[in-house]
């Protein structure tokens, strides 16, 4: 039974059976929503109809995450001057507008614009290098400032979404089974372009693109005989790059700070004042949170400045310190709700392009969650990847809400006819 109906049941008092618990749980994650187009009705211009064109599990979970994020940012703003709740609210507002626009837009049109998407990626990559637009914050390149309104934006964030559409549009052509090796190579080559571009700017974002793109390719039907050697190749290249960078005399491909972060990941005591210190402080913040946390405003680690970037990259450590194990589990639960409901939707959507877009979005969230939270826990190396919906920063918020908009667009345009 679909959630859409379930809620109506008591009101109309029809003979429809009460939903069982398993169905209720199932409905939380979308149930059979994609399969059963109440959508026919949904296109009608009724108030109820608008609601029925929204994939509610993804909406509720993402809005819950945004609300949770606003709470965390507000608590961070109590002690961290740079964290400003109004600015974050602006980001949320912009993100919601973007999400609504994307929701309305029929994403299926994009399937035909492969070349345009690729060009968009390249343009986004070039933007920060355009004089007058480029803006550098905290030594991190890759930002632009839109002249006049002073709005700063990180185009690489947007590249993630464009790339998801790009790879999904190429991969969808094979309708679930990539038969020719050349097609596989073409897919990988397409992914390689944004990946390599981003790699020169920001290792973290490029890895997100790689993971999201690779997930799409794998789900699009790549043979494991190809995929496994590809992964081995990637690992070998990565190992070679690290080896070169670590060995004096060979070219240093990695930037120094990247190398340091890797070393610190292996042995945090190497650099107790820099990244090693950050990692150590993040772990202390998380660990000292305990079961219920120290409460809002009582985080000694984040509040007294021991934890750097407590409102951005290390926001999870702040969250875990203030809200404890319970708060961390709520966060993971909300993400689980969001990701599983989108996975569920991907299962039920018929159009391969839609499926693959959703796959890319879920892979992006999963990887960002793993990387960002894992970094605070010391199980992933430190990178500058924000925690979706939670970390302070408008770029990330807009892009993540846009991703939710993509999910909603896929849901709204779930019938086969375009």
């Amino acid at each position, binding site marked *: 039974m679909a959630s859409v109906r379930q809620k109506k049941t008591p009101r109309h008092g029809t003979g429809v059976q009460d939903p069982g618990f398993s169905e209720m749980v199932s409905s939380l994650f979308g149930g059979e929503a994609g399969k059963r187009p109440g959508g026919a009705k949904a296109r009608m211009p009724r108030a109820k109809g608008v609601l029925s064109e929204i994939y509610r599990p993804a909406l509720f979970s993402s809005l819950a995450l945004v609300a949770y994020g606003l709470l965390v940012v507000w608590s961070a703003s109590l002690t961290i001057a740079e964290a400003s709740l109004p600015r974050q609210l602006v980001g949320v507002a912009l993100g919601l507008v973007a999400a609504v626009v994307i929701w309305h837009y029929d994403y299926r049109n994009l399937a035909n614009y492969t070349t345009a998407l690729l060009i968009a990626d390249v343009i986004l990559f070039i933007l920060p290098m355009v004089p007058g637009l480029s803006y550098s914050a905290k030594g991190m390149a890759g930002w632009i400032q839109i002249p006049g309104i002073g709005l700063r934006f990180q185009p690489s964030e947007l590249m993630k979404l464009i790339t998801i559409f790009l790879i999904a549009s190429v991969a969808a052509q094979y309708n679930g089974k990539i038969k020719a090796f050349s097609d596989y190579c073409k897919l990988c080559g397409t992914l390689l372009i944004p990946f390599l571009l981003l790699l020169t700017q920001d290792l973290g974002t490029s890895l997100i693109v790689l993971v999201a793109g690779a997930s799409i390719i794998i789900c699009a039907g790549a043979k494991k005989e190809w995929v496994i050697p590809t992964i081995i190749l990637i690992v070998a290249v990565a190992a070679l790059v690290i080896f070169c960078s670590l060995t004096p005399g060979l070219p240093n491909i990695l930037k120094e700070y990247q190398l340091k972060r890797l070393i610190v990941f292996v042995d945090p005591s190497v650099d107790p004042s820099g990244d090693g210190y950050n990692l150590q402080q993040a772990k202390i913040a998380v660990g000292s949170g305990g079961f219920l946390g120290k409460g809002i405003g009582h985080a000694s680690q984040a509040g*007294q400045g021991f934890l750097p970037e407590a409102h951005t990259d290390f926001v999870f450590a702040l969250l*875990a310190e203030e809200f404890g*194990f319970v708060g961390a589990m709520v966060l993971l639960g909300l993400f689980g709700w969001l990701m599983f409901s989108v996975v569920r939707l991907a299962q039920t959507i018929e159009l391969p392009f839609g499926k693959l877009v959703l796959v890319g979005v879920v892979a992006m969230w999963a990887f960002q969650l793993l990387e960002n939270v894992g970094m605070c826990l010391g199980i992933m190396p430190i990178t500058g990847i924000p925690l979706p919906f939670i970390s302070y920063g408008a770029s990330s918020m807009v892009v993540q809400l846009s991703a939710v908009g993509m999910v909603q667009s896929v849901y709204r345009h779930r019938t086969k006819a375009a």
Partner: protein
Amino acid sequence: MELGTLTIVIIAIIALAAIVAVLVVVSAKNGRFKVDIGGQTPRAAGGNDTSSETGFKGRIAGLGLAAGGVLAVLAGRIWAMQLMSGDEYVKQAENNRTRTVTTAAPRGRILDRNGNELVTNRPSLTVVAQADVADEEREIVLLGDLLGMPAMAVKRKIQDTTEGAQSARTVAVDVPRRVVAYLEAHPDLFPGVTVQQRTQRYYPYGTVAAHVLGYTGTVSPDQLKAPDDDEGAIQYESGDITGQAGVEYQYESVLQGIRGEQQVFVDANGDVTGYATSVPATAGSDVELTIDINIQKAAEEGLLHAIDKAHALNNKATAGSVVVLDATNGDVLAMASYPEFDPSIFVGGISNDDWQALSDEASGYPLMDRAVTGTYASASTIKPLSALAALNAGVASEGSTYDCTGFWTGFGEAYGQYCWDHNGHGIMDVRNGIVFSCDTVFYEIGKAFFESDDKEGLQKTYSRWGLGEGTGIDLPGEAVGRVPTAQWKQDYFKDYSAEDRAWRGGDTTNLAIGQGDILVTPLQMACVYMGIANGGTMWTPHVLKAVGSKEGNGTLVDYQPSKLREVEEDAEYLAYVQSALEGVIYEEDPAVTAHFSNLPVRVAGKTGTGEKAGKDPTAWFCAYAPADDPKYVICAVIEEGGFGSTSAMYAVRDTLGAIYNSPDDATVTSSASVR
């Protein structure tokens, strides 16, 4: 880069790759499996390609599995960190935000016997800097301008590690309020520079009694690690101020307070954000000394007077000391040493230049407390003991007489020895031998011992009177001196021929007049004269009178006099020697007598003039008063002071003048130059 790290990185990458590969295989398998099932399922009417549909299904399920795996891994790790090892992290977080700030406890004061403050504490504003400020050239120049010091001096102070490598470096002490206000108003100009409210040692009487009081300095590495085995011992921190000499050193454990501890909350910059528990500092206990400030001052002035007198007679008179004991209990009433030093230059850390100056030979080692650590040939002041030895052993009697011709040839012409009076004293008995300090009498006594069965009878007597042995005074570094014996000579001159090392008759005769290899400290001789004055009873000399209790005006410890030794001597012989010592003052030389005649009490004493090759003689004067009921024992030594009666005597006389409030009004100088 170490190879170990590299290996670990590579292993980590391989492990990660393996995990990814397994995930892929699992998801791919699911896909295949579903594909087969899909093939057997009847196609739906819509003509959907269910095979590809189910292929998607398996793979997307794999993605869900991966997402679930991410959540599970994270949740597991959070569980482990927050719930399993949360306590450890809580402790680390606490360590992060709490610091222990210790506050120095004021040292106890040092008082004289009447409660006058000899050493006390005064508040002092001190500018300290972190070690890394030494690299900030601009800041150093600014600081130098502000403090009125050359920038180089500021830099040197900051680079100085004597207060401990980790501790802040003292740049300037006793900084004016104006400077403090400026520093506090401009913290941005002076990062790493702070003002501390400290207490400093203060010496209301300046250099008076400096040698007894000693001085303080930064805790030495030895002191830092020493007290671990002792439960109640003070745990020092690097940079602590401890006693380094004198009473400050001797009673360090009493004077030193217990540091206060304050737990503070700090932020990441180390700025204090709040206060937690605190334990206040406990001040050290006050120490009351037996020193009488008036007698002490008189002794020091007398010492300078004696040195002046010696200079007037063209003696170098480079150094000297005076000891005043209470004969009835061993209290040290005064102890003076020259050259003196100013203990306040050690406050806030002594500069290298000052330290060099104080340790330099040319300055005459002013830090040395000559009363306790200086050793000299006793010269004629030992004659009373030689006489007692002779009377006891029977080598001489009260009726023995000797003919002094000025040149004694008891061991043959070749080994002749002069009496100090080359003209000769004529017929002398033992008493006159002491009164006129006639060497011939004691040469004879020495010869008699040398030729008797008890060859070392003299040495035995000296030893019975405590020579060659510490007095046990409660001051650091006491010298024991030396009573030479045949065995000692054998051992000491190892590199010489057997003949040269052999004990000769001349050694014994020299010893009898206190010349040669005998070495005594002024304090030892003071104790000897205390013993003579008391009829054999010697009290342990001591400077501690009481330790004040921490609360109120009571005392924690009151010093109880302890007997150092009771020398067994025939009372008749002692009386004989005592009378001889009175004779020294009143019979020997009218010029000496004149100096003592206006005192309300009779004095007994003995001069001494110690020969030293190539140097002016060491001048001695030991005395006690009143002669009939001894209370004060005074012993003075002037290095290269010439004759005892023309230099050291003045120090003794001036001190007695202060005690009995009857200054020396005689202007006559002894012309006979009695030794």
